[in-house]
């Protein structure tokens, strides 16, 4: 078996600036055989390596059936991501993966799919939205809830407008601070739960964002009768090896890098929201 800790060279074919601090790298492995064998599920992540600097875990946002390229949307937050922001089409990086467990998209078929996100960097669930929209007939109603601090933080803004015009789709967006011409709610996204139209017994909820926001969302949703096993969330912890060895992402009896990053709420609720874990 190939060394799971060894990166493979990938080339940036396209770089898209999504916002002043967020960009997308569209990548292809330079070894055609490795590229052809690469398979992933939405919600899984790769370790991206910048030569001489280091590795970061970043979720894969493109469609799993796109055989041409795979995409990573990255926000500039630290040393490695700042370095990645300088790269251009044609540059090479190291990529290993995919790792972890993704979203339960198979079991969500024929159900209402509700996607809840807060804050910046919710690329993991945008991949879910795109996945569902491309396979619309397999799913029932689609509910999208997105909260941002400032309206300027919302990336893919035209997409939200487009999604809201689609049949059987409800889009609820909120910004704590709204600029001029902000068409959506001003306030916290969790204030919009009363507007959600959802069949609690036939729903699959997928969320990511700050844990405080997710806890409020879980409370609202379980109150509406949605089972804890139907609520999935993407957890974030320090991940350095991605193969369950380095210990940084240990969370109770789990390692986020391999038992997650997507968990059902039931599987994390014992420690969820407890400061220090």
């Amino acid at each position, binding site marked *: 078996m190939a060394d799971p800790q060894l990166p493979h060279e990938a080339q940036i074919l396209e770089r898209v600036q999504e916002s002043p601090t967020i960009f997308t790298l569209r990548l292809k492995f330079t070894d055609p055989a490795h590229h052809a064998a690469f398979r992933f599920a939405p919600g899984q992540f790769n370790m991206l390596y910048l030569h001489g600097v280091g590795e970061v875990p970043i979720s894969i946002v493109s469609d799993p059936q796109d055989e041409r390229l795979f995409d990573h949307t990255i926000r500039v937050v630290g040393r490695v991501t700042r370095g990645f922001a300088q790269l251009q089409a044609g540059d090479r990086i190291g990529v290993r993966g995919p790792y972890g467990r993704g979203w339960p998209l198979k079991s969500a078929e024929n159900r209402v799919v509700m996607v809840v996100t807060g804050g910046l960097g919710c690329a993991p669930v945008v991949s879910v939205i795109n996945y569902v929209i491309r396979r619309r007939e397999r799913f029932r109603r689609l509910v999208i809830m997105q909260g941002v601090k400032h309206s300027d933080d919302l990336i893919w803004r035209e997409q939200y407008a487009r999604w809201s015009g689609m049949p059987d789709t409800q889009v609820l967006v909120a910004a704590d601070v709204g600029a001029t011409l902000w068409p959506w709610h001003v306030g916290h996204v969790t204030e919009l739960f009363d507007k959600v139209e959802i069949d609690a017994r036939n729903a699959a909820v997928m969320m990511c964002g700050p844990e405080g926001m997710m806890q409020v969302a879980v409370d609202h949703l379980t109150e509406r009768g949605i089972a804890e096993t139907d609520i999935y969330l993407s957890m974030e912890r*320090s991940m350095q090896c991605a193969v369950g060895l380095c210990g940084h992402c240990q969370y109770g009896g789990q390692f986020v890098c391999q038992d997650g990053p997507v968990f059902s709420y039931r599987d994390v609720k014992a420690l969820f929201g407890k400061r220090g874990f």
Partner: protein
Amino acid sequence: MEAGFLPRAGFQALLDALHQSGYRCIGPRSRDGAIVYDTLARVEELPRGLRDRQTPGAYRLEQTENPRFFSWANGPQALKPLFFAPVEPLWRSERATDGALGFTAIEPPAERLAVIGVRACDLAALRLQDRHFLEGRFADARYAARRANVFLVAVHCSHPADTCFCVSTGDGPRATDDFDLALSELDDGFLVQAGSDAGRALAARLALAPAAAAQQQAADREIEAAARRQTRSLPSRNLRDALFANLDHPRWENVAERCLSCGNCTAVCPTCFCHSESDEAALDGGHSRHLRQWDSCFTPGHSYIHGITIRADTRTRYRQWLTHKLGSWHDQYGRSGCVGCGRCISWCPVGIDITEEATAIGGGGAHG
């Protein structure tokens, strides 16, 4: 299997037999005031007559007239650094002038090690490190390479330190399995018992005399006495529920006021496995080595994610260590991560005692 008797004067023959079989012998040596494991060529290098005095926050060696080589409990190192290297390169990245990147795995040198003087607690810790590094979803190639072909010579512990509590964790003082040879030390020599085919083959080359019943009884009595001498204990072998029911116990704050968050406990712990990864780039930028190095949950970096430190204070770091070691380990590895070696007690600069803290927090029902 029947034990054989190896007179003290014949101990060099054991080392020679291992050398002739292609092993590099690693054994206890006295260095810088402590027992450490290092290359062992001659029997004279063993810590003859040395005793260790260990109390919370203190470790001292004393020379005695006793002829024994193993009349001490342990030193700061267990077997951990032999197989899980404190720092090692994982791979190398090379950048060509046209920007192309190439990655090459770096494997540790192939070497056959024989380790002399392994304690029961350290064998238990080795089993846990094996479970973590070899039996998970992804086996670690570098640990596996170091661990392969190792020959283990256990020595039953007859001189536990005041800090030892292996009886309460169920891991000692007698080495019960997973060794190639196990020795009981008596004043005039050793009872030798084989625990594997490799051990039987080696024992056969030593021309051992059959052990007398009286010798066996004397050896057993020493191990039983060693067990009785231990005064420390954990309140239970499974503290998971008791600790997680007490996450807001005031004792966490109390221990945080004493703890320096230095990470000594995790460095000497034979089961702690956390490590961080980093790059060591050449100045010309042409190549870079990707390293891993022991890390500790007592550092701020351990829980850092993009601007957030999940465990910014000592209270949450100590709680993380203890609830993982004695709690979540049960979920992840089927048992507690503590083998009762007592190192974290002796090597803690302020003498924090894991058995006291665990008893205060998890020893009696839920708190408030």
